[in-house]
């Protein structure tokens, strides 16, 4: 009895044959592209490779197409890599392409040179267009892939150097055919945020195809149109993309870009410290200067002041005061002595004093007149002694003394 295959079994068997062949599973083919078509919305690409009269149907899945720097156009000479197997539903064999390269790198390079010359002629690379970067950025917009280690590297540098800054990631593919449109959108989105004051467009290293999105005309124009300065850091130090030429500044690597974009916190700390010290010193100096000035003035004042002569006067006055006092004392004593002497004289000459010495005062008993001569004697006289008086009758008159 014959064993009959089902169609499915047959196709599977043939498929297995293709897939057992190592050459067919890892093959490079050089040919010309025809009937290139990118299906929507799947994003898978279908085309035919021709050379002379031979042709082979080709499929490139979206995932692979996405990684392409550029997709070929009909008539392009290319080298493709992939695997041959069969499409069982149609029992046709196809080349499943995972990479397409323009023949040689010459083609990409020519495109690059053409675009570069064109934009340069437009003045997009002119030095006058380059804007200065903010010295102390407040918010850095970063255009790169969220998953890329590059983004982490940039964050690390910013954290270390200038943690005052805010980072806003505007995520974008950085490789493949969809990358240019996303890069453009990411740049435009950041431009709508007023707080962003500088943009960093970056990507890690890769082949010329990997970096190709940064040689896209629209990306270049989006960078040129950015309201805020753009720093580009694409690939390695030796890679120069069109984006680098248009950007306000190019950095050799993303980490280097982060350094260019920010001041070093260490320098800022030193700066603040320096200003602080300067501030203290100036005030101290100002105060010292004024204190010294005040001292000078005081000394000058002392020299010029009447206070000095006032002191001299005061001393003289003291001297005089003392002298005056002793003079006065002398004079008072003299006066006192003189008064005492007058008093004594007065006392010595008073009538009472004479009576005290034993004399008597004789008056006319009738008239009270003092009788100081024998001629004046009246028949009745009053005699006053020191301690009382008597009245007397005159009997006889004696001869005048000394013969008057």
């Amino acid at each position: 009895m014959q064993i009959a295959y089902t169609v499915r079994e047959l196709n599977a068997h043939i498929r297995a044959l293709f897939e057992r062949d190592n050459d067919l599973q890892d093959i490079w083919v050089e040919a010309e592209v025809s009937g290139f078509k990118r299906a929507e919305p799947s994003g898978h690409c279908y085309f035919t490779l021709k050379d002379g009269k031979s042709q082979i149907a080709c499929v490139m899945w979206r995932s692979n197409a996405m990684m392409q720097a550029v997709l070929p156009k009909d008539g392009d000479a290319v080298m493709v890599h992939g695997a041959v197997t069969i499409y069982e539903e149609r029992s046709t064999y196809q080349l499943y392409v995972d990479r397409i390269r323009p023949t040689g790198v010459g083609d990409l390079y020519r495109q690059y040179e053409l675009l570069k010359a064109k934009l340069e002629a437009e003045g997009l690379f002119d030095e006058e267009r380059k804007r200065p970067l903010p010295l102390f950025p407040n918010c850095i917009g970063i255009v790169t892939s969220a998953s890329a280690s590059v983004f982490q590297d940039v964050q690390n540098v910013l954290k270390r150097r200038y943690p005052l800054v805010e980072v806003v990631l505007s995520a974008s593919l950085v490789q493949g055919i969809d990358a240019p449109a996303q890069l453009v959108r990411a740049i435009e989105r950041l431009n709508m945020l007023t707080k962003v004051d500088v943009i960093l467009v970056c990507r890690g290293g890769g082949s010329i195809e990997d970096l190709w999105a940064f040689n896209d005309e629209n990306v270049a124009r989006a960078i040129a149109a950015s309201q805020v300065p753009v720093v580009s850091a694409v690939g390695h130090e030796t890679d120069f993309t069109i984006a680098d030429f248009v950007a306000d500044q190019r950095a050799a690597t993303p980490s280097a870009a982060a350094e260019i974009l920010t001041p070093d916190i260490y320098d800022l700390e030193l700066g603040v410290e320096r200003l602080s010290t300067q501030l203290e010193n100036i005030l101290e100096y100002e105060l010292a200067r004024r204190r010294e000035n005040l001292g000078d003035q005081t000394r000058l004042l002392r020299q010029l002041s009447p206070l000095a002569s006032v002191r001299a006067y005061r001393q003289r006055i003291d001297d005089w005061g003392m002298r005056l006092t002793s003079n006065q004392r002398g004079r008072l004593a003299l006066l006192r002595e003189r008064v005492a002497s007058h008093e004594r004289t007065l006392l010595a000459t008073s009538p009472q004093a004479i009576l005290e010495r034993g004399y008597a005062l004789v008056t006319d008993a009738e008239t009270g007149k003092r009788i100081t001569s024998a001629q004046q004697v009246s028949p009745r006289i009053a005699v006053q002694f020191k301690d009382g008086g008597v009245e007397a009758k005159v009997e006889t008159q004696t001869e005048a003394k000394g013969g008057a």
Partner: protein
Amino acid sequence: MTELDTMNADSGALPALTFEAAYAELEELVLKLDSGDLPLEESVKLFERGRRLAVYCQGLLDEAELRVNQLLDGGEITPL
């Protein structure tokens, strides 16, 4: 309460300043003070302002922590 907060609390104008603005003002102020010829009262006033700016700047540097956000397609910003 940190030193920075304390200072923010007793100076109305400072908290709104960016580091850049505060640093620039501090530099300018030192230059002005250094030129001399200011009345003592004004010197002291500038000095006090400068002192506050310096502490403020130092505080910003000490307490700074990198903020990382993501800008979405719609224009919203979310922390990353």
